[in-house]
């Protein structure tokens, strides 16, 4: 048989290869959950609570059931034997309310699923939702977390009248001493508002039950197919090996699809009940109501420093708006913030108290950055507040306090160890590239002209490449299987579950270089629990650092076997494999990878003590996180008449370790920055004081459009991570983490001569205009 593997000498790592995912995506032939059609498909639609808090006095489903075309209506009593929506976090005093798939006798937030209607037609299912009559008796609700903590506030869960969902304390060093020795202490209340992750593809699930062999196939728009399978098997009481979960094409996630949502399990439950495949896809309105929100922090900061700018200590109180129930990782969001509180600075005294608060709102959980943007926003704002207080240049103040390059690996007071970095170098590169001193002169001139120009700096360090297993309830490893097919093509099965990151491309580049084969001879598959060995999934900027490393190690193991087969075929004990061929070092005779692969599968003879076939699997557990870092600089101008902010320059200088594909890294930075900038200027999930969601559509929620995002200049330094053999760190969340403080710092800087020290996000024109009108006093 002809073999297809070609010799290849060009290295692909580091090259801007256009994506291998794209042909299906640009021709409309990709298959997302909603594109899946199965014979006899039925459609589920969810009845949701219009009240933030109410007792359910009765549900009359008769009219809906009698509606032509409706197959079934299920309410809380039909599913009360099923398991709860899981929370995977444990903390010593964590309170976990039982989170049923459908409300039982009470509803806890607007959008709470109360019943589900099933019909053979999606329009009829939607019609029948309106025919389900639910009798509610509304009770008092509480929407704002600080109000929920007040004595006498309505209890979200009757058994915990203080509305405290959990507390967490962590400290390092001696905070009392640091504050006692300080010349100056600056304080600020800093809010990181609730955001809607807003993947363009709404969540959705298709489930199909095979009654013959009692197996369930679930297609879901998820970032974690293997974990979803374990969780769903538990909720449904189904043996896990009878359940297959497939993440087909997934249209973005940003953390919001790292869950087991009630509707995912309900869709599976209904498919098993009615014996027909069932499709359920959220509308955008339901996506706003019932997909987790991100952020939701109210933080109280105190920063202690010497007169010369030496930062001594940081005391922070974090109030996390939990919502009414925990989702999979909710309590981990603020505890992750705590690990990042010191930022890039070397002070050793940090004291953090966290309180998670139940409110009558949808749950918060992972959203791009997940705890790290909040912490970075806090410290990078506080550094600016301190610089203003001390009348120091913010660049100088940062450099004075950075962890120096000689101190790596650097143990922080929060108990993590930064792997590698050169913070001063990256800030200096950004400052030089942007022309910082020239900009300061322009700013002086602008102010003389009455213009409000600002220069904002933000530096960040990030904990990513999740991560060592003690840090995650899911396990922090990742897996890869590499198989050389008999005809020589290479199949890679990875446990990560990319949904826009381009890992089919980057993993192909890695495999092509490691194996020395043509990239077109490699296929990377993922996202199907029945074909992929096992996996953790895609979140926390981990694909390349963790999944890519598993891939490299699997290939390295395989190469030893390739050489064993090559030695047999070349009748030599001195062979070397490289660039698609195995060469006898004595005679120079060669045998191709394709020939070796065919022999390995079809024989007729095999090397002694060697199994047939060329296939290797690696599960790699990282010894540490990786820690990317960077410096972003924003130049903005505020229109004093309208309060609008115009960004004239956005420079992002990032260090994500070794770069596999610079085109994709730039794409991640751009997208990340747009989300952080969206938080800074535009976005906010708003519940009114009666607990109603005001921002329930894109008409009300200001997702950035193309004209609302500036051109982003990118540059990099490259400090390899010592944590993995590729030297990569991660770049999925960096832009989001850096952008919100960079933008806010620039706007505060534009107004600093009016005495403005801090403005909470989003920086709406109304908020800015009022500040300008009041001469800076908020």
């Amino acid at each position, binding site marked *: 048989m002809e073999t297809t593997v070609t010799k290849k000498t060009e290295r692909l790592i580091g090259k801007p290869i256009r994506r291998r*995912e*794209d042909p299906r995506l*640009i*021709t*409309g032939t990709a298959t997302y959950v909603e594109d899946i059609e199965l014979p006899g498909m039925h459609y589920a639609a969810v009845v949701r609570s219009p009240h933030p808090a109410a007792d359910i006095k009765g549900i009359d489903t008769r009219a809906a059931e009698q509606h032509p075309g409706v197959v079934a209506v299920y309410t809380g009593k039909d599913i009360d034997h099923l398991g709860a929506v899981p929370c995977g976090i444990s903390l010593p005093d964590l309170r976990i309310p039982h989170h049923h798939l459908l409300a039982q006798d009470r509803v806890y937030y607007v959008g709470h699923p109360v019943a589900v209607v099933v019909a053979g037609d999606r*329009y009829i299912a939607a019609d029948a939702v309106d025919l389900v009559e639910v009798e509610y008796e509304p009770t008092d609700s509480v929407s704002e977390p600080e109000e929920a903590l007040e004595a006498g506030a309505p209890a979200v869960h009757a058994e915990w009248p203080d509305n405290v969902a959990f507390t967490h304390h962590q400290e390092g060093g001696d905070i009392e001493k640091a504050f006692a020795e300080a010349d100056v202490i600056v304080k600020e209340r800093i809010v990181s508002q609730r955001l809607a992750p807003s*993947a*363009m593809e709404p969540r959705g699930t298709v489930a199909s039950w095979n009654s013959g062999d009692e197996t369930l196939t679930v297609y879901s728009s998820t970032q974690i197919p293997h974990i979803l399978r374990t969780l769903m098997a538990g909720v449904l009481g189904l043996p896990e090996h009878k359940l297959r979960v497939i993440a087909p094409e997934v249209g973005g996630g940003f953390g919001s699809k790292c869950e087991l949502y009630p509707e995912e399990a309900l869709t599976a439950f209904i498919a098993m009940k009615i014996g027909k495949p069932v499709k359920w896809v959220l509308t955008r309105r339901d996506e706003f109501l019932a997909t987790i929100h991100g952020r939701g922090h109210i933080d109280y900061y105190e920063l202690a420093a010497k007169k010369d700018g030496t930062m001594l200590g940081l005391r922070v109180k974090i109030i996390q708006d939990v919502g009414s129930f925990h989702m999979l990782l909710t309590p981990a969001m603020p505890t992750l913030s705590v690990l990042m509180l010191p930022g890039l600075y070397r002070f050793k005294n940090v004291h953090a108290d966290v309180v998670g608060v139940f409110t009558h709102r949808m749950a918060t959980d992972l959203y791009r950055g997940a705890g790290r943007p909040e912490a970075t926003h806090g410290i990078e704002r506080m550094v600016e507040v301190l610089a203003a207080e001390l009348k120091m240049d913010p660049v100088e103040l940062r450099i004075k306090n950075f962890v120096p390059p000689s101190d790596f690996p650097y143990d922080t007071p929060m108990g993590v160890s930064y792997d590698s970095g050169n913070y001063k170098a990256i800030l200096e590169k950004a400052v030089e590239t942007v022309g910082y001193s020239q900009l300061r002169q322009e700013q002086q001139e602008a102010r003389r002209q009455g213009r409000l120009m600002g220069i904002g700096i933000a530096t960040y360090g990030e904990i990513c490449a999740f991560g060592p297993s003690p840090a995650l309830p899911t396990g922090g490893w990742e897996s890869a299987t590499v198989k050389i097919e008999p005809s020589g093509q290479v199949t890679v099965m990875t446990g990560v579950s990319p949904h826009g990151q381009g890992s089919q491309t980057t993993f192909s580049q890695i495999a092509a270089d490691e194996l020395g084969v043509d990239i077109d001879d490699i296929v990377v598959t993922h996202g199907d629990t029945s074909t992929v060995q096992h996996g953790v999934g895609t979140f926390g900027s981990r694909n390349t650092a963790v999944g890519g490393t598993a891939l490299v190690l699997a290939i390295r193991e395989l190469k030893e076997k390739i050489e064993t087969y090559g030695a047999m075929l070349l009748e030599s004990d001195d062979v070397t494999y490289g660039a698609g061929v195995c060469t006898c070092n004595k005679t120079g005779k060669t045998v191709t990878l394709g020939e070796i692969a065919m022999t390995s599968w079809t024989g007729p003879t095999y090397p002694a003590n060697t199994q047939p076939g060329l296939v290797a699997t690696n599960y790699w557990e990282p010894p540490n996180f990786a820690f990317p870092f960077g410096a972003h600089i924003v130049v903005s101008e505020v229109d004093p008449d309208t309060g609008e902010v115009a960004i004239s320059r956005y420079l992002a200088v990032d260090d994500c370790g070794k770069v596999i594909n610079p085109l994709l890294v730039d794409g991640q930075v751009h997208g990340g920055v747009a989300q952080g900038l969206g938080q800074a200027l535009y976005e906010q999930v708003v519940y009114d004081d009666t607990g109603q969601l005001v921002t329930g559509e894109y008409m009300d929620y200001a997702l950035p*459009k193309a004209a609302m995002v500036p051109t982003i200049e990118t540059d990099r330094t490259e400090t390899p991570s010592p944590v993995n053999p590729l030297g990569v760190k991660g770049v999925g969340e960096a*832009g989001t983490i850096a952008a919100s403080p960079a933008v806010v710092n620039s706007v505060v800087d534009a107004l600093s001569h009016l005495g403005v020290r801090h403005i909470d996000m989003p920086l709406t024109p109304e908020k800015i205009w009022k500040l300008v009108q009041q001469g800076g006093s908020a």
Partner: protein
Amino acid sequence: MKTQINVCINGQERTDEVESRLLLIHYLREVVGLKGPHIGCETSICGACTVALNGKTVKSCALLAVQADGQDIVTVEGLATDGQLHPVQEAFWNEHGLQCGFCTPGMLMTTRELIERNPDPTDEEIRHGLEGNLCRCTGYQHIVNAVKSAAAKVGG
């Protein structure tokens, strides 16, 4: 009650009986079987459902199928001809103008008309021209590059 409609979709004439309330996007996706146009919001904001109706871009979630009667529709599936990608598709691929790809069919259809109307658009004109299409992944920059590249190719 069903109504008969005659449409030409990606160059093929067809006749269907549709419910009068059926949205054009659902007609295309579920009756015709074209899964390229996507549903991202159903409020005509996100533009994932964008198609061309008689050469002009429309949001197919904001039209009824019956409104398309007698008209010509092109979806993303109709962009490539004879196995050759349309320059707009090629440009989005080359410039990394997409990540998760969900908004892409709409972006491509809008871009097709944008560069037809304005063969040499500035960055600002591109960004305003795309205001009916939301993307959460790319931060738009590579999309802007792709539109410019496609315009240069078509114009040149």
